[in-house]
Each structure stands twice: as C-alpha cells, then as structure tokens.
C-alpha cells in the first residue's frame, strides 16, 4: 500500500515536470511547479529526511513561486 502511494507520487512528479516544460502559459507553469515542489516535499518525508522536506515546502513551494510570480509581473505572461 505504501509502495503504491510512493509510486503514485513519483508518477505525479514526472507528469508535473513534463507539463511544466511543455506549457506555454508561464503563470500555469509556476503553479504546476509549486505542486511539483509539494509532491517532492512529501517524497522527501517518505525518504526519512524531514528537515529537507520542510525546507522544500518553504522554499520550493513558497518562496520560489512568489519570486517567479514577481518576475512574471515585471515581464510577459505568455511564452512566445
């Protein structure tokens, strides 16, 4: 059961990474990257490293998304 959940998390991670690379809307890409970071945080927790997990949740899903949003607000939203 636990292995199945871990497998689902990893598959979701790969799907998120592929979609981030393929989407043209940069705002959607930032939101999907936040979901990617959240999944990565849960996977770190499953790998018994809670310190990295809490840092990933704070930096990856929080601060990095906000910095990307600030960068988008200064530039264009859609990739050409």
């Amino acid at each position: 059961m636990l292995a199945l959940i871990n497998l689902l998390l990893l598959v979701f991670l790969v799907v998120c990474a592929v979609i981030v690379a393929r989407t043209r809307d940069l705002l959607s890409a930032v939101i999907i990257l936040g979901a990617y970071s959240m999944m990565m945080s849960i996977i770190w927790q499953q790998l018994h490293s809670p310190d990295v997990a809490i840092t990933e949740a704070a930096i990856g899903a929080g601060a990095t998304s906000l910095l990307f949003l600030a960068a988008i607000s200064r530039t264009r939203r859609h990739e050409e």
Partner: protein
Amino acid sequence: MHDMILEMIARLLIPMIQLFGMYVLFHGHLSPGGSFSGGTIIAASLIFYSLVFRFSERKHRLQHDTSLLFEGGGALLYIVVGLVGIFFGYSFLTNRGVFPLGQAGRLWSSGMIAIITVGLGGKVAGTIFTLFQELLEGGTDTDGNH
C-alpha cells in the same frame, strides 16, 4: 484595489503562518527545521501581507530600513555570540563551558544554538522579503516610473 475576501483570509491566515514559522524557528535544535525554513515561512507571511494590503495600507509596509536592520542584526548577533567564546578563553563559537546547556530535549537546552538560530532566522526573513520587494517594486519599470 480592495478585495474583502482576500483581506479576511489574510487576516485569518497570517497569524497562523507566523506562529508556525516561529515554532519551526525556536525548535530548530529539537525538531526538523531551523533558521532557513523558519525564516522563509515568516518571510512568506510578510510577503503575503504586503501583497494583500499593498494598496490600502501603504504606510504599514515593512520598510527597507527595517529589513536591513534584521539582516545586519542577525549577522551581528552571530558574530557577537561567537566572540563570547573567545572572550572566555575558548575558541570561536564555543558552546560548552560558556553557555548553560540545560537538559537534553528541552527548549532551553542547547546553549548558544537557539540564539544563533533566532538571529539567522531574522536574517533569512529580511533577505527573502527584500529580494521579493526589490524584484516586484524596486528600480524603474517600463514606463520610467520609480
């Protein structure tokens, strides 16, 4: 722009985010987390505040001087706490023999580590908030306004 739903959610959420950030910060030597994670969570709550209330309460924003004070103060606290060891005749950042160690597992049990964690947390929070504010509002935009 004045969004009532956003402001109400922010008023509910920001104290909880800050409380959680301070928990992560103060328990850095006991549980997962520490200065970097706790400082980032507190900075995220400050960024949330400055995004929601930017238009209505402009004077309540964290000014650049304040975040500069946190940054410089955190680094200065680290150096001063480290120099206390030299002052008492040990090496730099000495813990045993200078600071009271207490009981293992308690909150006040790690000597100077807790003090350094709090100082560095303030530095990280100030740095990330300044980074965001400079990126969003600093400099001149495409219209030439400051």
